[in-house]
């Protein structure tokens, strides 16, 4: 007599230690093998886009901070780029350089969280705390700059809320030689660890075609071996003045586009960010950071789409102006949201433990997905 088998549905989340926030995954299982993954989102929905319509343009900035709370600086960067494009204003060079420095520091901080939590997801708890130790240093730099450690409201339309603290340049320069050896430490402790490689190599392979079809961007796309980085391919701000590489996944431990590649691209990107910060600190011009801030932001009727490369990929803002002080529509193209949509594709045929490895490797932030 044949044994009757049936598929089991397992709810992972919203209260689960490694769903990185309040994500619920509905797993269709056959034993421990995944047959399908259905992400359920919306537990962190805060009506950002609707709220923005009732706000003046500068008032939206603190809300933007709260989208992807691990890369607040970059969210502001993207938003002000869009509004400035709409207004057609030029910002002083010093402002652009400071934005780049902050953005890249934020990228390192965000990648540290991604790498650290990834280690914790796979059972290595120590790298997690090492990553947070180093992130603290960056947060301290942000703190002396604008007083906040997580949600900054620092980058304003046309300028910045404050100039740099007198000590900032010195401290940032000290941070670079401090941090370089820590990347190596992370590699020794986690990246090349046999067990870690076993868990991540050849798991959750994202072929470049699938990545493009879904619209995946950022480290996840580069992990699949595509050299696509908006800082280079569609330069904004002053990124065309720096010399840096775009690391891509090479399949060193397994297949191109596996979890290890996506993870390692982030490690390499931290190194590149350090290079950019170093150059930006050297070239940092003098000037006034508040001179171009408009007294009243009232863009002409029109619409604009501006995109920046935030730590998770292409962060785009589509803004429609009806000529009033409030935006008519603010639409966010959230990279995490798009990365999450490939989960089903990546997880099929793997085991439950791999869902954690895959989810960690695409590095989502629920604040941005649910908005």
């Amino acid at each position, binding site marked *: 007599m044949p044994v009757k088998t049936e598929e089991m549905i397992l709810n992972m989340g919203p209260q689960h230690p490694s769903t990185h926030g309040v994500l619920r995954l509905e797993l269709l299982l056959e034993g421990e093998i995944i047959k399908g993954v259905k992400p359920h989102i919306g537990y962190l929905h805060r009506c950002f886009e609707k709220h923005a319509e009732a706000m003046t343009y500068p008032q939206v900035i603190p809300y933007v901070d709260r989208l992807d709370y691990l890369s607040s600086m970059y969210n502001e960067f993207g938003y002000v780029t869009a509004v400035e494009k709409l207004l057609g204003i030029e910002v002083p060079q010093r402002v652009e350089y400071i934005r780049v420095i902050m953005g890249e520091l934020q990228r390192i901080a965000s990648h540290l969280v991604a790498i650290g939590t990834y280690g914790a997801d*796979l059972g290595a708890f120590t790298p997690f705390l090492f990553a947070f130790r180093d992130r603290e240093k960056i947060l301290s730099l942000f703190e002396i700059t604008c007083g906040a450690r997580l949600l900054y409201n620092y980058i304003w339309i046309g300028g910045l809320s404050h100039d740099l603290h007198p000590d900032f340049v010195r401290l940032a320069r000290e941070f670079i030689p401090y941090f370089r050896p820590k990347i190596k430490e992370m590699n020794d402790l986690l990246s090349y660890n046999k067990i870690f490689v076993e868990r991540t190599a050849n798991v959750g392979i994202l072929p470049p075609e699938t990545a493009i079809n879904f619209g995946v961007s950022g480290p996840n796309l580069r992990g699949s071996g595509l050299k696509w980085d908006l800082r280079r391919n569609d330069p904004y701000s002053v990124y065309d003045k720096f010399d840096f590489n775009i690391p891509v996944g090479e399949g060193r431990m397994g297949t191109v586009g596996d979890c290890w590649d996506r993870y390692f691209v982030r490690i390499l990107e931290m190194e590149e960010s350090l290079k950019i910060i170093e150059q930006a600190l050297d070239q940092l011009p003098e000037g006034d950071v508040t001179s171009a801030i408009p007294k009243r932001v009232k863009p002409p009727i029109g619409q604009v789409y501006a995109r920046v490369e935030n730590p998770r990929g292409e962060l785009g803002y589509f803004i429609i102006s009806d000529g009033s002080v409030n935006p008519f529509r603010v639409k966010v193209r959230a990279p995490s949201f798009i990365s999450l949509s490939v989960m089903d594709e990546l997880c099929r045929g793997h085991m439950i*433990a791999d869902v954690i490895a895959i989810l960690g490797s695409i590095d989502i932030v629920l604040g941005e997905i649910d908005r």
Partner: protein
Amino acid sequence: MIYDFLLKLTGSEIAAGFIQSLLPLFVFILPFALIAVLLERKVSAHMQDRLGPMRVGYHGIFQTVADILKLMQKEDIVTDNSDKALFNIAPVLVFTGSYAAFAAIPFSGAFIGSNIDLGLFFIVAVSGLVVAGILMAGWASNNKYTLLGAMRSAAQVISYEIPTILVIITIVMITGTLNLYTLSELQTGHFWNWMIFGGPSTGLIKVAFIPFMIIGFVIIYISTLAEVNRTPFDIPEAESELVSGYHTEYSGMKFAMFFLAEYANMFAVSAIVAAVFFGGYQSPFGYLGNSLGISWFIPIEQFFWFTFKGIFFVLVQMWLRWTLPRLRVDQLMALCWKYLIPIAFVNLLIVGLITVF
């Protein structure tokens, strides 16, 4: 022997046996668990640039006491749809399994719970109870996560018992005894008499044994790590996948039972490794009591050395836990069946051949 002393004191065999059976619990396991939990937190904290518990007492030394007080006050939650009877028995069974193992472990020349001839066999057998307890806990909780955890755990513990037993057989072939007390007595003298250095045999054979003994030690250490579900084999309670595996639904003192069993188990397996390969309670350099001529001091020294060796291996377990990531369940099985068991078999064969010649 402690038993004779107790017999004289109480005048009744039953009372003496009863007291003796409780001794390891109150003299050893409970204080050890208190210290080990704190130690684990402190070790992990210092490995991770943290301080760990600092508030309760000097550098947090009473933290575990406070934790236990908290656990005792907690509500004992039994979920509605759980199988109440199994749910309540499971923690007891798990603890019984790990506690019973202590019966055959010789703490020192003067104190062994029960000097049975099949000591090692008994320990391996009685540890099997733990699996039953874990399965019960996972099933009775009526929760998919606990069930998955329990299934993984049962598969893991049973698989890893095989390499452990194979290594133990290797030792038994050389020494000809399963009695841990005799085994420890065989390794008396200096540290080169320990099994890891070829044991009591002499000459060329002793040298020939050494590499195979080291292989055996590595295998048994890895397998015992898996048997007590410690990282990198903590898959049954993989917190990032299964919340906390089979004991997810437990709270209060029942949870504490699982916790206590885990720490008791950690020491039990370390003690077995120490007893089999590292001379058990034997001092590596000879005894102070002998040179001073105080014979009653020797058992105390032996107790010290035994605890020292046990805690050393527990510390290694902690060190591994806070360094390594976790294997996946199929990789874990592959490691056991594809690597450890074949190597252990070959090891067994070679040692057998050496013993014959």
